[in-house]
């Protein structure tokens, strides 16, 4: 594990009893002594604190000095309306490639005089290179390496964070602020990856431990590892890049049409103009051959990633594949996400997943598996 990077919270994770695992080039906590199941349930009942410092933080600043120019430049790489993103707001986006596949998924915030991007850990070097290759004419690209990133998620997140930064109570889902605090300037969004209300908080590396300790003093807040992060996001129907999204899946196949606003679609003010537009706009107009769906196995056996899916209990060729599957602690049953031939994608369709040579019944199900608790 000598080549693995560590976040500023590494020593604190060990002190808290975390089990550390390699993840996206970092040594990260997969669970604490509470265990994955209880960590998951604690986050849904109270509040969970996650170290997500391995993720990439990038600032895009237009060389013209006009943020709209940075927005228009970024629109050349994403099928998303960035120009229409108001100051103080954040939006989900996707970097696409020329074939319409997904290079990464990310968050983009308009912070007035610049755009702030949060990208996946495993993709962050490639994303920075992608931005540099295409946008360095129009934008200064600043990869932030001196800040950690925490996520505080759950129904008690607001009260726990407001004790240190009162302004967060006034934020709506997907608002972003830059707030002074006892831990220096914090960059806060009201968002996350758990299906709960909560925040992501960027803090200077040298203040990260102090902020984390201060948040953990609140007995409603518990440290949560990557294990529960994965089951929380899956219950919420959220995609994991590298599992549910990759360069072979298009945004339409991934059922992410909601992330592509009217302005970028056929007939919109800024139709197309992003990599893979021909394929993506074609799929938006017609029917993609496969779609991302949710699945609820009827029994208790989880259908994990790579489980092949069939239209019948015996015979036939696979009609799809599971891309994420786990037990859902809050729904008390296993759940999966995957891709399936479009004609089998309607909610309620009975299918079978082959687990250890046995075909087990499952039902195509709308996601999220558990309703989200976002503060709209």
């Amino acid at each position: 594990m000598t080549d693995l990077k560590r976040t500023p919270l590494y020593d604190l994770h060990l002190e808290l009893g975390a089990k550390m695992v390699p993840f996206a080039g970092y040594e990260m906590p997969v669970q604490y002594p509470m265990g994955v199941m209880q960590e998951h349930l604690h986050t849904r009942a109270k509040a969970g604190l996650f170290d997500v410092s391995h993720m990439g933080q990038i600032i895009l600043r237009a060389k013209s000095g006009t943020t709209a120019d940075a927005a228009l430049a970024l629109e050349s790489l994403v099928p998303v309306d960035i120009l229409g993103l108001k100051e103080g707001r954040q939006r989900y986006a996707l970097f696409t490639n020329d074939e319409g596949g997904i290079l990464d998924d990310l968050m983009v915030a308009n912070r007035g005089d610049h755009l702030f991007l949060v990208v996946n850990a495993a993709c962050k070097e490639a994303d920075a290179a992608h931005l540099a290759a295409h946008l360095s004419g129009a934008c200064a690209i600043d990869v932030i390496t001196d800040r950690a990133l925490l996520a505080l998620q759950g129904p008690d997140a607001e009260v726990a964070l407001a004790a240190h930064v009162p302004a967060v109570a006034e934020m709506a889902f997907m608002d972003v602020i830059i707030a002074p605090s006892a831990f220096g300037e914090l960059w806060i969004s009201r968002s996350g990856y758990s299906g709960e209300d909560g925040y992501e908080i960027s803090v200077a590396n040298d203040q990260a431990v102090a902020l984390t300790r201060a948040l953990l003093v609140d007995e409603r807040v518990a440290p949560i590892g990557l294990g529960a992060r994965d089951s929380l996001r899956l219950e919420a129907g959220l995609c994991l890049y590298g599992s549910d999204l990759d360069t072979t899946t298009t945004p339409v196949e991934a059922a992410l049409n909601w992330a592509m606003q009217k302005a970028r679609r056929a007939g919109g003010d800024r139709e197309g103009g992003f990599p893979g537009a021909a394929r993506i706009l074609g799929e938006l107009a017609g029917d993609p051959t496969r779609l991302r769906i949710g699945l609820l196995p009827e029994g208790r056996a989880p259908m994990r990633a790579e489980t092949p899916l069939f239209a019948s209990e015996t015979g036939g060729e696979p009609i799809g594949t599971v891309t994420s599957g786990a037990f859902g602690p809050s729904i008390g049953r296993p759940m999966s996400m995957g891709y399936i031939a479009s004609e089998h994608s309607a909610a309620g369709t009975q299918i079978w997943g082959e687990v250890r040579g046995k075909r087990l019944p499952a039902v195509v199900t709308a996601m999220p598996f558990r309703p989200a608790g976002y503060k709209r």
Partner: protein
Amino acid sequence: MKYTEEHEWLRVEGDLIVVGITEHASEQLGDIVFVDLPEADTEVAKDDEVAVIESVKAASDILAPLDGTVVEVNDVLADNPGLVNEDPLGDGWFFKMKVEDLSVLDDLMDEAAYKDFIG
């Protein structure tokens, strides 16, 4: 009680051997959410994959510790797999086996040897 290198425990009960996984194994696996047990009256050879445990993290195979016949399985685990975490040496047992000769147990580790094994 006897132990295997696969972290199973074996306990003689009359002319049968009760098999489960050790506390150490159940801790390593984490929260167990599903146990796929064999059918009763299944003949097994040592190291056959006879059962599967799914934890929140991953699936793990349970190997037959000995040649013999599985004569009874712990059906309660189907609805309450968490018993394997709560009481791995008791109510969280997996299955009962019949073997030709109980003396095969002599080759397995005793508790002291198993404790050394897991360090």
